[in-house]
């Protein structure tokens, strides 16, 4: 606290001034457009942009469909932060949205957001992750149990007997648990008969490729490399399984499955190192969400094929198409979904 320190005021004043001016210049370019007409205004919140799908599939196709329907879209991604998402919901409500399409960062922490929307009389459409006990108008998502069953069906028809490994995803997500449940639904009769033995069945923290690799390595060590299939929670965990198998010279000899059909998974399928990866039509999901938001905004009924109980009530459920991508249908899939499969290197 001497005179020397006191100089700081001038310097800080100047630099803050520069910062302020720079900010001004940056922001003027992004002046928000405020539509004067009575367009339907829909808020779309994505959980993050870390995975390829959110920005390039879900949001892109939502916005495209919204433009066709004449909806104004406010889109934000929550950087995987619950508190940022809470602020974004408040700010969207301030901007006067008519409908909110919410992909929760944390499906167990989203009820406060729904309540805020309700206070502002804004209906909420629940996107991708089912919100526990959420008072929402409808849910869009794949049926992860059914997806797990579809994958396991393909595995048991190729290998009706032998040692199996399940490398499931992050335990705290419903999709990881439900996918595994789907696997087990199909495997149960085989396990009871004793034809199939589940030699390793674990969840992998944060969908970690590394931990999946370690799990499969250990399973191979314990069973003297006698494993016929590895069922994985997503493509990331499947990469770990493939690495573990290759290290033992088993690449391509064991049936490995993944979920999402990421570009790298497509490559591994082509090489025969992975047997299949389940693909969900995220484009269709974005399109259906925009249509549902439009219907809700107009006060019209939602076309849903099923209902799902989220603990509070039966919610109309718009199910999204999914299918197994294998060597045989990879080319067809590339034609049907170029926005996803064209991304491969």
């Amino acid at each position, binding site marked *: *606290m001497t005179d020397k*320190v006191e*100089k700081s*005021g001038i310097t800080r004043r100047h630099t*803050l001034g520069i910062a302020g001016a*720079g900010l001004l210049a940056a922001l003027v370019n*992004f002046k*928000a457009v405020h539509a004067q007409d009575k367009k339907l205004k829909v808020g779309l919140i994505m959980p993050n942009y870390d995975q390829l799908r959110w920005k390039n599939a879900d949001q892109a196709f939502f916005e495209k469909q919204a433009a066709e329907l004449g909806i104004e879209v406010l*889109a934000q991604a929550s950087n995987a932060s619950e508190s940022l998402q809470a602020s974004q919901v408040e*700010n969207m409500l301030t901007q006067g949205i008519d409908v909110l399409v919410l992909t929760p960062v944390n499906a167990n922490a989203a009820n406060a957001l729904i309540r805020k929307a309700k206070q502002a009389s804004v209906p909420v459409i629940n996107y991708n992750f089912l919100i526990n006990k959420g008072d929402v108008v409808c849910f869009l998502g794949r049926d992860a149990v059914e997806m797990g069953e579809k994958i396991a069906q393909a595995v048991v028809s190729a290998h009706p007997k032998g040692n199996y490994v399940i490398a499931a995803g992050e335990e705290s997500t419903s999709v990881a648990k439900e996918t595994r449940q789907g696997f087990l639904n199909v495997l149960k009769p085989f396990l009871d008969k004793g034809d199939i033995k589940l030699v390793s069945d674990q969840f992998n923290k944060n969908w970690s490729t590394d931990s999946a690799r370690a799990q499969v390595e250990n399973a191979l060590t314990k069973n003297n490399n006698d494993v016929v299939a590895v069922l994985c929670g997503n493509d990331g965990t499947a990469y770990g399984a493939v690495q573990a198998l290759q290290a033992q010279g088993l690449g391509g000899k064991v049936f490995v499955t993944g979920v999402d059909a990421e570009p790298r998974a497509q490559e591994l399928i082509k090489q025969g190192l992975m047997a299949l990866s389940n693909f969900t039509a995220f484009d269709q999901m974005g399109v259906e969400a925009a249509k549902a938001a439009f219907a809700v905004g107009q006060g019209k009924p939602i076309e849903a094929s099923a209902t799902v109980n989220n603990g509070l009530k039966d919610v109309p459920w718009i199910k999204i198409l999914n299918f197994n991508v294998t060597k045989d249908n990879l080319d067809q899939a590339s034609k049907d979904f170029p926005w996803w499969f064209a991304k491969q290197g």
Partner: protein
Amino acid sequence: MSMSARTTLTAQTTTNKGGTFRNLPEMMSHGELRLLPLIIVLMVVWMVMQYLTGGLFLSARNLTNLSGQVAITALLTSGAVLIMIPGFIDLSLGATVAAAAVVAAMAGAQFELPLWQTIVVTLGFGLVIGLWHAFWIAWMKVPSFIVTLGSLLAIRGLSLVITNAETISPSPDILVISDTSLSATLSIAVLMGFWLAFALLQLREWRARTQAGIQSSFLSVVGIPVTSVGIFACGVMVVAVSYRGLPLPVVFVLAVVALTGWLLRYTAFGRRLYAIGGNRQAALLAGINIRAHVSMVFAFMGLLYGLAGLVLVARLDSAPPGAMQGLELNVIAAAVIGGTSLMGGRGTVAGAVIGAILMESLSNGMSLMNLPSAYQSITVGLVLLFAVYADMRGRGGRFGD
């Protein structure tokens, strides 16, 4: 007031002659009005946001939202200033606040404690962590960077273990913290009290200086600060009265700011914190009990973990064990933008809170403009960079040139 406090004031005021507006630039770079540039920047940002959002930004509704969005950072940044002034740092905030939220949720929902006991348990939990930090830093002499980094990892892990990595829902009565707003009359009373107390303290300081024969300008000690705080209080009053009243978390912020601001400016304890940060050796030789002072600030910070955890659990109506990652960096950034030095010895609570409001205003405004979050990060990052650059320049020779 202690000796060290008196000498500090003397050093500031002897350079500060006369009380006319001609000396305003000089007064701004010295002493009391050091915050004025920051306030001006905040005002400019608000005006720009008001324009760019087509009048939404300064609506009572949005300002009320903004106050709720900034509350947790503002609460913690007040405590962070107390820690940073004597030259320490706290990197554990994100983890400890999330853990406090988990404790609050579990106490209410799983152990079915009544609300007041939940609050006591949560604050107690925070205090225990604060004392844990104090023990390692003040007694075992481990650098605070390492101790709190250890907590960042360990306490986050602890939350995941006790919750089994699942998000806990609190008992509904805790929502009273986020849903309660003071009535209009009560809001006005609280704000008037806040302003009056500030005015009286400034007046007392001016009188003390004059009586001690220190030349002191009434304008810079009482006039401008009291007027600006008055304008701020009136603004908050108008907003609070025209929307839903003063939200309870904002009352917490005001109380913590008033308490820490008073501690730092008007008590020997606070002035000694500056002395410790300015020159630890000299402070020790001057007979300051560094251990006791450091323990006090970390214990106080512990209470703030608990308080912020309560606000968080009420705001999210859930306690995700992985919540608030990176909060510690936001809090430190807010303090630094507000003029707190990372090297210790310098900083004010008011500055830090304005820094927090500035950062949250940028986020809120850009979110209202519906700017993609990537651009929001770029802007906030640049603002932080400029502020830290200014902080380094302000320290002069310390960094070498």
